[in-house]
């Protein structure tokens, strides 16, 4: 999925940035009873950097099931940063995989470690829930996002050719939190959409479970992550 952190590059180390967030930035966990007010704010924050808005169902898919993995940063009561994630068994196997679906920080607030802090909060919450690993995708040109994740300990596990609708390729980044349980060999993670013809994977199930109408993204290479459709 998309991680919308474009400019500027944070030249400080994540720990420095950690230490000095402006004290007025308040971090909180998403609360479902506040959906009517939070959801529109989250949507507009994330849509700001996307050529195509996500359908409301995409947000609901994540927030209804994994609202506890969604964290917000706000300033003067306005939401200025958000991370949306999920956690579930990876392809029905023993591995519990976290997935960072969306991450956005309002442009004027970037470069202060807010995104790093949000991602860390999401990972910590996943760890509490027993996650074995965390995955995400980012555009190959999105250096700030890759830096952020790589500094936290993620590594690139594979490249996905023309993954986004824009024609851009993606990297899948993975963070192992525990020793892997099963032994499948291969590259170690799901190729989902991309390898379905190779291995006849249960891709379509992914789309149906979600129950939303976003299949149009798949037609041309899907700007949005395949995992979104799980």
């Amino acid at each position, binding site marked *: 999925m998309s991680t919308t952190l474009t400019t500027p590059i944070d030249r400080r180390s994540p720990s420095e940035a950690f230490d000095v967030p402006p004290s007025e930035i308040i971090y909180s966990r998403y609360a479902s009873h506040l959906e009517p007010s939070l959801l529109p704010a989250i949507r507009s924050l994330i849509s700001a950097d996307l050529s*195509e808005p996500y359908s409301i169902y995409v947000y609901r898919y994540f927030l209804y099931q994994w609202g506890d993995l969604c964290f917000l940063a706000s300033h003067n009561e306005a939401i200025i940063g958000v991370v949306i994630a999920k956690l579930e068994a990876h392809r029905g196997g023993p591995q519990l995989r976290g997935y960072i679906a969306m991450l956005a920080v309002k442009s004027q607030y970037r470069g202060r470690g807010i995104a790093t802090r949000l991602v*860390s909060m999401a990972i910590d919450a996943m760890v509490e829930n027993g996650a074995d690993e965390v995955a995400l995708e980012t555009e190959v040109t999105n250096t700030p996002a890759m830096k952020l994740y790589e500094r936290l300990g993620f590594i690139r596990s594979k*490249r996905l050719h023309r993954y986004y609708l824009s024609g851009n390729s993606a*990297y899948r980044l993975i963070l192992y*939190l525990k020793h892997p349980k099963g*032994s499948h060999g291969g*590259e170690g993670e799901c190729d989902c959409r991309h390898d379905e*013809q190779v291995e006849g994977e249960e891709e379509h199930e992914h789309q149906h479970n979600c129950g939303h109408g976003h299949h149009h993204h798949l037609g041309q*290479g899907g700007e949005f992550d395949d995992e979104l459709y799980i």
Partner: protein
Amino acid sequence: MDPKMDSGLMPAISEEQFNVLASRSPEEIIGVMDQLLSSEMAWHTGSSLSQTVLISLYIDSLLENSPHVLEQAVFRSPPPELSQHDEVLLSVLRAYCLGLVKCCGVVNTRIKSQYLPEEEDFSTSTYNISLLDSINPRDVCEELEKTLQLLETVADAGLWRENIHSALKDRLSHRLAMLQGFSLDLEQYHSYKDIASPPWESCIKLCTQIEESHNLGKPVEEAFSTNVQRKLASTVPPRPKVDMPFAEAIGNLKRMCQEMMEIMKVLEYVSPGNIVTFLLRFNSRKQQPFTYVRVSLQALLVQNWVVVGKIPIKEYVIEDVKELCCPLPKLLDSRNSAAEHPLSAESNITKRINWFVDRAMQLILGLFQKLCMNRPRLRRTLCHTLLEWDTFQAEAEEVDAELREYTKEEPMAGVDGGETFSYPLSSWVFHYKLRIMEWIVLLGFELEIYQPYEFAGMYWVVQHYISSRILHIDRIRSHLLHQATKPVPEEWTAQQQDTLAYLTYLSIEAKAQHDLVAALLNTHRLLLAMDLIKTHPQPYGTGELRFMLRMKPFKSIQVPENFDWESVPWEYFQPQKEKEADAENGVDEERIAADKQETLEEATYYITEARRHYELLNKMRASVSRSLLCEEMYKNVG
């Protein structure tokens, strides 16, 4: 309802907005043709037809009534008041558009005929629009020829300046050459070099002429509209027009023609080793060959289980085994299959060889397909196929052992005093498997999957695989030399000599790679020691866990043995930890300086060795280095 998401909300295009029959200057017609070529090339590089060719209002108009015959494909009936000038120009544009649509149609058919991960490299969707599917390309070529004649007849009328006239003519001739090229079927490829005016060559020549006259053209922006998308059968939200600059488009087209000419080389089949070298070199170029070319290459390689139209894939596998291992004559003797007695040695050999070849040919076919894919996918599919090769190796070893009963192979004394056997079939499998393992790691570098702080570790890994392969090549060679001491049929001696030379080449090549990798490994160790490569604390995960993730593709492989974290030089895999340890234990400046000196010396030693080996390779005959099909490419990259 969001217009960003729903093309149905786009306004329809009315005739007032754009009239395909409106009078155009010849400059505008040239401009439109060049715009169309740009959009066609954007499609060739991965954009969808709905963002390129199909949003041309001229093409939209031609295809509006799904024409089944050429006569139906018109910009509606022209009103009688058209001047001769307008009529000729519209005919030129119509013929050009028909040629272009037909080009797209035949290209799409070719691409869909082969194994290709859909919509990744190339967008084959036509949104239920027939790209003149029911019309023979020959008819479209004739239409283009007729229009060229029409242009000639009006040349004397002095309708336009001469350069304009040539520009129009060149574009039609160019389109004709493209269509002739694209509509060649695979059978015709086999006689490509006998064609009097080969289309790809003509196409390149005409590209240059078109480039020169491009400035005469005047683009007509309003001749394209994304609003056409509202009519397309698709659930995709509106997508913007893809603009490829003309210079880039023509550069792409020239490169594509050049690549098409190059792939014909595989038809000069020499041996399996040469085919593999060609595939590796051709597809590892910085600018990956076009999807159409890679698909055509895939089609040329194997059709109906015949390799390059010359050799059945079963025979190809046997040739491949012979080329690398040159097993005992009895093993691959084609007369074995004639044996009638089911319990005879020959029948038993045949049964097992057939089993082996049936498995091997599937894997070889798969490898051909993979080597024609885009690089990220190549790496991922190699990770998957590696397990198949691993299983196959174990099975082939059993078969090798069974076959010894029938070939009466005499053992060779091993280094430890025990007896060893040649294991020819599994040796062949193992060699491929080791190469695949190396490719997976090397592609990790190429695709920038590894970060600079990981380089030392990953060089260490690939060095290990290359070392295993060097040992393996030596093993094959020593068995072959052992067998060579026994009398064998004469034709086999030639094969033995050929294999020995090939093994020497493979060994030097592997050593060159090994030494280059070792030099790079030491260079990166030095860079890390000098703090010239950034490392970060990485609060989540551990070095060991990241190492396991890196090794995941190789985790289930039986040989060579897997690395165990306890035994790997962990400082290569978590350099930041080494720094932390230094900081904790205090820094022994003297030791560090000595270490750096030693690392530098090692790097220098290995780079000198690598150079020496590469120079040796450079002197080898193309027949030995198996680069007969791509000598220039091989020397330039190798």
